[in-house]
């Protein structure tokens, strides 16, 4: 059974990628299992300068989902390069550097720096709902998506993944804009904006008031968007949104994903990435599928 997939020229041992923001830089999950087991790790969103993040509470559960507003707490791109790459490079999993900027210049500078070091792909997060400047503001307007992708493209010497926001009226517009701007792949979806209220205190549960919704409850939305984008662009798609088991992963492949990211499920089951990969294999065995890549876009619509 061949679990290898190739995304924009980069070969992954298997199509399971740990989603940015749920997996840190791999240290913690690396204490539970061998990181060689995952295809890639999309690291915690990096910013030009270190960021302290939002005040707590930063997380709450909603039916079938999780709302978070971490606010990109991270040590900054330079500390990542110096301290985290050597750790991650001990493993065969690919490193996807997730970049989150406040300005075009931030993204360009990070793309240039990261292209000069030993990472495999860049993921441009233009859809973070939890920061005031940049983030989602770039990801929701097709013209801006085109401009920023085109601009960052010049500095990115590595395959450039653009991570799309679901908080738009038509995701195929931003997907096409990223493609026209020169993206090598797309990842979707980032979290849906949401909120939760405590009726006893009459206050929002998250200190940031609004957060990003993820987990099983967003899966139908994510799946629909992957399906639509697959039919609109000619780029490899990394699908994500509530994938919690092998069945979910298969659905995302059928809808058009070339690989998948697993995020919130890591909180439920710290071994989720490995388990989902194994469950995907079981499906392939039962269905007599030799290459996991053969599943991509095999949805039958009568």
């Amino acid at each position, binding site marked *: 059974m061949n679990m290898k997939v190739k995304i924009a020229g980069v070969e992954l041992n298997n199509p399971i990628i740990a989603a940015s*923001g*749920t*997996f*840190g830089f791999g*240290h*913690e*999950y690396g*204490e*539970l299992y061998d990181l060689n087991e995952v295809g890639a790790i999309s690291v*915690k969103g990096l910013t030009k300068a*270190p*960021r*302290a*993040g939002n*005040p*707590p*509470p*930063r*997380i*709450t*559960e909603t*039916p*079938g*989902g*999780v709302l*978070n507003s*971490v606010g990109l*707490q*991270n*040590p*900054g791109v330079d500390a990542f390069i110096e301290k985290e790459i050597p750790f991650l490079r001990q493993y065969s999993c690919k490193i996807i550097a997730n970049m989150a900027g406040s300005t075009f210049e931030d993204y360009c500078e990070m793309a240039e720096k990261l292209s000069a070091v030993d990472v495999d792909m860049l993921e441009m997060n233009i859809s973070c709902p939890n920061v005031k400047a940049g983030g989602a503001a770039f990801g929701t307007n097709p013209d801006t998506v085109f401009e920023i992708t085109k601009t960052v493209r010049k500095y990115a010497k590595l395959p450039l993944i653009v991570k799309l926001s679901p908080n738009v009226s038509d995701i195929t517009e931003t997907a096409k804009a990223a493609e026209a701007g020169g993206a090598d792949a797309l990842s979707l979806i980032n979290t849906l904006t949401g909120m939760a209220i405590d009726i006893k205190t009459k206050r929002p*549960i998250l200190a940031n008031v609004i957060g990003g919704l993820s*987990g*099983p409850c967003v899966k139908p939305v994510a799946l629909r968007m992957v399906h639509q984008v697959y039919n609109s662009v000619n780029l490899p798609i990394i699908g994500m949104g509530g994938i*919690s088991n092998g069945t979910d992963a298969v659905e995302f492949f059928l809808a058009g994903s070339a690989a998948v990211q697993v995020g*919130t*499920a*890591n*909180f*439920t*089951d*710290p*071994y989720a990435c490995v388990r989902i990969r194994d469950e995907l294999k079981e499906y392939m065995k039962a269905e007599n599928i030799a290459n996991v890549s053969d599943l991509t876009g095999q949805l039958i619509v009568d």
Partner: protein
Amino acid sequence: MSYEVYTCTLESQKEIAPNIVEAWVVNAELAAKAKPGQFLHIQCGDATSMPLRRPISICDVQGDRVCFIYEVKGRGTKSLQQQYGELDILGPVGNGFTVDNGKYKCPAVIGGGIGVYPMLFLTKQLKGAVAYIGFRNKDLVTLEDEFNKAADSVTLTTDDGSYGVAGFALEELKKDCETKQFDIIYACGPKGMLRAVKAFAEGAGIPCQLSLEERMGCGIGACLTCSCETTHEGTDKYKRVCRNGPVFWSEEVVL
């Protein structure tokens, strides 16, 4: 730190006070590793509808059995109360209390509300502990006998005076400071109480450890959601309750 997920036999669950449930699970490895102040990150039922585990402090360990006591409050704990058979538990998690019997000759232990429960395991491992446990009212008074056995002396308070001494546990601790030379204070309870304990301990120059609580995600330090504000600058401003804590020296945190 070595993390592991254990499938534990859920031996019993019993409501010991209104909406307060005492649960015992059996798992030799978990029991052997558990230290006072650490917690269990528990899957409380259907993971598809409840993707997050719930962090609950360890209350006691006896042989290969581990006890935790929780308040039935929201969807998660309501579902947990309905569980039987087995429980999926990540743990023991976090840095517990610093128990150094050689160093601390006169430790004070203070717990308020559900913050009383983790203090039992701690009290049992201390020599000469002076315990202060506070409850809202008589109905919620629990573990009185266990504390009486484990501590040198126990002062029990209720907010409304329906049992024990009327008022807050901290006020009793403060009074005793006139006669006792506490060399450490260990505390767990509501944020308001911890704030007051911190202020008092620091004012009196007594080292103090606080067990904090925060809404939590992964439980192992990866997701950066269960943050607490610290006195550090930069990216250390917020530390992870699950991994850097849940027990912190009072001087390190801003409450």
